[in-house]
C-alpha cells in the first residue's frame, strides 16, 4: 500500500480549556471515500477544518501528501508561514454547510475567480473549464445568475463546482446538505454520488445522511468526544456495530 495522503498522528486540538481532539490518530488513503459520523460537538467538523487550515492544532503532527502542517520553528498559531499554508491548500478543497458562495459574483465568476487568481489560468480557459464543471453539476444554464437567484440546492452544487475547479486531491464536505430543505437534499447528494466514482479523488464527508453514507463510503468512522470510537466498512458499522456507543447513536438517528 502506498503511504496515506492524510495522516493525523497524535493530534491534539484545544479551544481554550476544551479539548476537541485528544491525541487523534487517523489516516486516509489516496482515493478513499471516508464518512465521519457522530453526535454534534464530537470533533468531526474540526477534523475537516484543521485539514483546510481554517483551524490550527496544538500538538502532534499532520501531513497531507507528505507535507507536514507544522514547520520546524514555525511561528504563529499555525506554526507555519502563509506561503507554506498556501502550499498545503493546493491539495485540499472544501464544501461548506452554508455554501458560502460569493454573493456579489455571478455563478460563472464564482467558479473562475480562484483558478484565474491562484492557478493563473487564462480567462477563456478558466471559463470553458468552469462551464464543463457547471454542466457536471447540471447548472450550465445558470452561469450568469447571482447566487441569491438560486435555490439552496443549486447554490451548493455551484459550491461543489467551485471547489472542483481548483483540482484538489482531497475534497472535504462539511455537512453539505444540513442547511437544505428536505426536497433539495437529493440533487446535492446526486452530485456527490457521481463524484464518489472518481477513482483518484479522496473524499472526507461529515454528514447525518446515514443511508447515503452507507451507499458511497469505503469506510465509516464513528466519532465521540474527540476520538474515533469505531471504524470499519459501512456494512459492518451500520449492520453490526461492536461498540455500545455506536449502537446507541445509530439507534437514535436511524428510523427503525
Amino acid at each position, binding site marked *: 500500500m502506498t503511504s496515506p495522503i492524510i495522516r493525523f498522528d497524535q493530534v491534539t486540538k484545544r479551544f481554550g480549556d476544551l479539548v476537541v481532539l485528544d491525541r487523534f490518530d487517523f489516516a486516509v488513503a489516496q482515493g478513499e471515500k471516508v464518512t465521519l459520523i457522530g453526535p454534534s460537538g464530537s470533533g468531526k467538523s474540526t477534523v475537516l477544518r484543521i485539514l483546510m487550515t481554517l483551524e490550527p492544532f496544538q500538538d502532534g503532527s499532520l501531513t497531507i501528501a507528505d507535507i507536514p502542517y507544522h514547520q520546524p520553528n514555525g511561528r504563529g498559531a499555525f506554526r507555519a508561514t502563509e506561503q507554506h499554508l498556501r502550499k498545503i491548500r493546493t491539495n485540499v478543497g472544501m464544501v461548506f454547510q452554508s455554501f458560502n458562495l460569493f454573493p*456579489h*459574483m455571478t455563478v460563472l465568476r464564482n467558479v473562475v*475567480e480562484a483558478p484565474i*487568481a*491562484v492557478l493563473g489560468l487564462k480567462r477563456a480557459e478558466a471559463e470553458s473549464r468552469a462551464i464543463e464543471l457547471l454542466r457536471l453539476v447540471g447548472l450550465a444554464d445558470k452561469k450568469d445568475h447571482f447566487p441569491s437567484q438560486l435555490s439552496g440546492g443549486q447554490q451548493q452544487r455551484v459550491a461543489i463546482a467551485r471547489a472542483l475547479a481548483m483540482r484538489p486531491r482531497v475534497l472535504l464536505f462539511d455537512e453539505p446538505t444540513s442547511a437544505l430543505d428536505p426536497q433539495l437534499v437529493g440533487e446535492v447528494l446526486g452530485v456527490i454520488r457521481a463524484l464518489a466514482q472518481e477513482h483518484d479523488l479522496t473524499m472526507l464527508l461529515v454528514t447525518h445522511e446515514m443511508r447515503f453514507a452507507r451507499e458511497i463510503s469505503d469506510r465509516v468512522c464513528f466519532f465521540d468526544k474527540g476520538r474515533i470510537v469505531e471504524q470499519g466498512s459501512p456494512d459492518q458499522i451500520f449492520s453490526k456495530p461492536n461498540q455500545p456507543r455506536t449502537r446507541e447513536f445509530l439507534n437514535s438517528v436511524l428510523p427503525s
Partner: protein
Amino acid sequence: MIYGFSYDTSSTYAYALSILPILGIGLIVTIEAALAGFSIALVLGLVWCLFRRSRFKALSWTTACVVEFIRDTPLLVQLFFLYYVLPDYGVTLPAFLTGALALGLQYSAYTSEVYRGGFDAVPRGQWEAATALNLSRYQVYRDIVIPQAVPRIMPSMGNYAVSMLKETPVLSVVTVLDILNLANMIGDRTFEYLVPLSLVGLIFPIMTTLCSVGIRGLERSLPKAGLALR
C-alpha cells in the same frame, strides 16, 4: 476689489449680488479641499485598517497608537503643526495642501474604524471560502471583502464626508482662501460683515444637503450583496 470683482454697497441686495462671484470662487476652493481631504481620508483610513489587521504584531500595534493619537488631537492643533512646524524641517507645503492633508489625516482615523466595522460585517463563511480556494490575503480583500464591505460602509462614510465638508472653513486660519476666508476679507474691506457671513451660513446647508442627497442616491444604487462583479 477681490479677484477683479468690486462691491456694490448701494443696497443690501446689490451688495449680496456683487459679492456672490467672489464667494463662488471661495466655494470652489472649499469643495476642492473637502474632496482632496476626503480622498486622503479614504485611502489612508484603508491603509490604517489593513495595518491594524496585519499578522505582524509590531505593525498593528504601532498603527493602533498612531491612529489613536491622531484621533485624540484637535484638528486645529494638527493644522498649525503641519503649517508652522514642518517648514522648520525643510518641508514646506502650500497652504491648500497642508489643509487637505490635515483634514485627511484627522478623518483617516475615523474612516479606519468605518472600514473595520465593514470588514467585520462580512460573514466569516466568506473569509473561510476564500481561504479554502487558496486566495492570497491581498486577493481576499480586493475581490471578496472590499466589494462586499462597500455597500455596508457607505452610510457612515457619507456622514463623515458631510461633516468634513462642514469643517473645511477651519483651513482659513492657515490662509487658505476658502469661502469663509473670502467672506471675512470682504467684511474687512467694506466694514459690512452681516451679508457675506450670512451668505456663507446659507450656502453651507445647501451644499451639505445636496451632498447628503447624492450619497443617499449612491447607496440606493448599490446592490445589498456587494459591488456586482460580473
